[in-house]
């Protein structure tokens, strides 16, 4: 398989705080990779570096064979990296459909084509019935799906999902799991930060564990779940 994303010795410091250090991993096209670790482990920071929100302090990021280290986030979107936000960020003055249209306009500036593409993505994410509602009126679960629809509308090769299952009811988690599986069927790779283990374990092809900004383990979900280093990190020594 060809490597879609290669992160090599990535480091990110905020002043004296080391949020990421010496993180290396890779991700293949169409693969689902789970990124877990205790709170403050540096997962969101890693996302922000890959999505171009922060320039990394050290290391390189390669995507589809190109060095994309330090590219700003709009460029990353053009390259084919889309993301959702841990704290949802919708365009509050717009309807649900219009939110997704903004994403669709990345590839085609025609409003009517964006409208069609956005409707398709809303359908895909099960939000069709909410299309004309102001985005600010959605429930948390719906807002998370809106973020996914909006990101998918940019036609990415890689989707970064930051805690999309946090705060959802068990049945909503199952729906989210189903959604990620259908995204993978479209050939889109997913890098997923998740605290909800029953959400990520069954769908991930590969898991990466961070603690104190470093990668402490990686492997299949089965390998990870009985790794003593991981258990120690989670149980707190």
């Amino acid at each position, binding site marked *: 398989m060809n490597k879609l994303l290669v992160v090599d010795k990535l480091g990110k410091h905020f002043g004296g705080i080391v949020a990421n250090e010496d993180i290396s991993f890779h991700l293949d096209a169409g693969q689902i990779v789970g990124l877990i670790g205790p709170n403050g482990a540096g997962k969101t920071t890693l996302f922000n570096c890959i*999505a171009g*929100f922060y320039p990394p302090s050290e290391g390189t990021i390669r995507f589809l064979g190109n060095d994309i280290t330090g590219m*700003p*986030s*709009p460029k990353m*979107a*053009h390259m084919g990296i*889309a*993301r959702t*936000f841990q704290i949802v*960020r*919708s*365009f*509050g*003055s*717009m309807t649900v459909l*219009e939110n997704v*249209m*903004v*994403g669709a*306009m*990345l590839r085609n*500036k*025609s*409003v009517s084509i*964006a409208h069609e593409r956005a409707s398709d993505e809303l359908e895909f994410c099960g939000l069709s019935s909410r299309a004309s509602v102001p985005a600010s009126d959605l429930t948390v679960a719906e807002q998370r799906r809106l973020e996914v629809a*909006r*990101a998918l509308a*940019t036609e990415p090769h890689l989707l970064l999902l930051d805690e999309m299952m946090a705060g959802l009811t068990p049945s909503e988690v199952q729906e989210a799991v189903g959604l990620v599986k259908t995204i993978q069927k479209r050939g889109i790779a997913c890098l997923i930060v998740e605290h909800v283990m029953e959400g990520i374990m069954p769908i991930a092809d590969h898991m990466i564990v961070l603690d104190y900004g470093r990668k402490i383990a990686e492997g299949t979900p089965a390998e990870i779940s009985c790794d003593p280093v991981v258990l120690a990190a989670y149980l707190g020594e």
Partner: protein
Amino acid sequence: MTPKQRNTLIVSGMGFALVLPFIVSNPSHQNYLILVLMFAQIGVAWNILGGYVGQVSLGHVAFFGIGAYTSTVLLVSVGLSPWIGMLIGGVVAAFFGLLIGWICFRFKGHYFTMATIAVAEILQVLFTNWEGVGGAVGLYVPLDQQGWWAMVFNSKLPYYYIALGLFTVTLLANWAIEKSFLGYYFRAIKDDPEAARSLGVSLTDYKLVAIAISSFFAALGGSFYAQKELFIDPGSVLVTSLSIKMSLVTILGGIGSLFGPLVGSVLLTGIEEATRQILGGSGMGIDLIIYATIIIAVAIYYPTGILGWAKRFLRRGKKAEDGA
């Protein structure tokens, strides 16, 4: 409102605007109508940057002034028709806007607003000391040629129709922007810049697009003002109170909405004219007190302006009806 109702309203509004100066024949009332349209037009221009993209400029008079000076200087020096001077002024202002944006968009929020005030103040000082463009004395529009090509008239009527035409063109441009991807990108930038960036929207690029368009149309208003008053100086076309008024008609009427500036201009210009009639002269700075009061009232009670309030009011009425 359904699209059909909306269209009927717009068409009948346009028809009304066309016959209005025949109903209102008193020249001073006609002058009020011209001012309403003029401030509505520059309000729409301001709204493209301030309302849609959320970049509140309080230095927009700089572009208005550049428009006024460009067309007037070209008219005085080489006898160029103000119609062409107006377009050149618009282009000059757009480039100046790009320069200002390139510098000032580095500053966020209130700092951007303060930077734009500084730019306009600097421009006023510069023009006051620039003898080549009349300095502090100002410039008179030559009266040896009159009529449409020279844009100089004895009666108010032609000015009214030019103001109406300019307002309509600016409004149509705003409408076209609103309907295109630019309208979506502008609102996305205003609502959540980081989310917009994640979807491939370059903030600087699109803010520059907005400021160029906004400055172009603000400058058209300036050229028109020069032809209407037949005289310009830094104290009339480069004063900060004009920047405030441009933003205020929009904020009062409804920020980020197509017809907000018109609604705001009808009211604000009306209030100003009324105080002028009652108190005489320049109104003794009473307009500044009115501006301040309106800013505070809108900020507290109607952050979405009169149109936003009206929309909510209508929606509530409709909900009550549906419920009954």
